[in-house]
């Protein structure tokens, strides 16, 4: 059942994506101040939530890996780290596209943008270290992931602590029901896609570890 879970998630996403897009464009009113471009919100915000959740998961898995040297925790940290890179890039591209239309500038160097950019750079370093680092670098990479997870509360509270061009965190809570009804399917679709890719990547990493061990055992004659 677990092996088929990614397929189930991708099938659910294949249904949820067209449903959410038609809800966003055909059944949700145009926001008065920003106009049509506000429709980027329905994918930009859930992606930011997913990115932050993945960064925290990666930090926790990396901390477990550092403490217990667990293979599963290592696989989870690698998979979540790569997906932080993908979702983070999506957030960092869609945000400035929205900002260009709404604020007149793509990048305003506000605290939330900078802290999100910093998170992406930390996880880029994590992924590069995991991929190209020498023996023993996995511990350094794990420490980087823990450090990256600490940046998540900074991103969340950036709009409360500093004066930013981003709206406050209260905006999402005060959305009209019609917008919530479009936000949920978009969030569901993105969660299904991300979780499906995550499970595939964890499985791959565990298979790779098994393969590496088998090759070593074969080359050393099982000694």
């Amino acid at each position, binding site marked *: 059942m677990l092996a088929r879970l990614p397929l189930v998630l991708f099938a659910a996403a294949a249904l949820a994506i067209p449903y959410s897009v038609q809800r966003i464009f055909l059944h949700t009113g145009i926001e008065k101040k920003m106009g*049509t471009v506000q429709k980027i919100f329905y994918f930009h915000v859930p992606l930011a939530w997913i990115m932050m959740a993945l960064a925290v998961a990666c930090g926790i898995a990396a901390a477990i890996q550092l403490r217990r040297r667990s293979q599963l925790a290592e696989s989870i940290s690698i998979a979540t780290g790569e997906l932080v890179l993908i979702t983070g890039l999506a957030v960092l591209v869609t945000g400035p596209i929205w900002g260009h239309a709404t604020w007149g500038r793509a990048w305003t160097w506000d605290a939330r943008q900078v802290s999100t950019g910093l998170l992406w750079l930390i996880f880029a370093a994590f992924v590069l270290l995991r991929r190209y680092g020498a023996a023993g670098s996995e511990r350094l990479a794990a420490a980087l992931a823990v450090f990256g997870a600490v940046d998540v509360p900074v991103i969340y509270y950036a709009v409360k602590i500093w004066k930013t061009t981003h709206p406050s965190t209260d905006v999402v809570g005060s959305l009209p029901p019609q917008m919530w009804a479009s936000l949920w399917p978009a969030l569901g679709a993105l969660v299904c896609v991300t979780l499906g*890719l995550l499970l595939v990547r964890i499985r791959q990493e565990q298979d790779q570890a098994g393969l590496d061990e088998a090759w070593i055992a074969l080359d050393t004659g099982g000694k």
Partner: protein
Amino acid sequence: MSWITSDLRAPAEAKTPADDGYEPVTGLDQGTVQCVRACEAEAAAKTASDYSHVVWAYGVIWALFAGYGILLWQRASAQRIDTAELRRRIDRGASP
């Protein structure tokens, strides 16, 4: 054309819609028409620009996910080849 001039000169005498269904066109002055057209053009340009931004944003998101999916598929293919090679080596070693 006499019916037009008669309506313009003496609007009070114009026939009411109840008489024969005819209703004189009052129209908008040229300044109002131009202002409305300018607003419409500006709104249309804003909507077109907004849609362009939205399409780029959505395109980037799904291109990134698709790209990562292709990367995972390539890795899986490489693992399948590696597993097959390992199995061949084990079978060769096991055979007398």
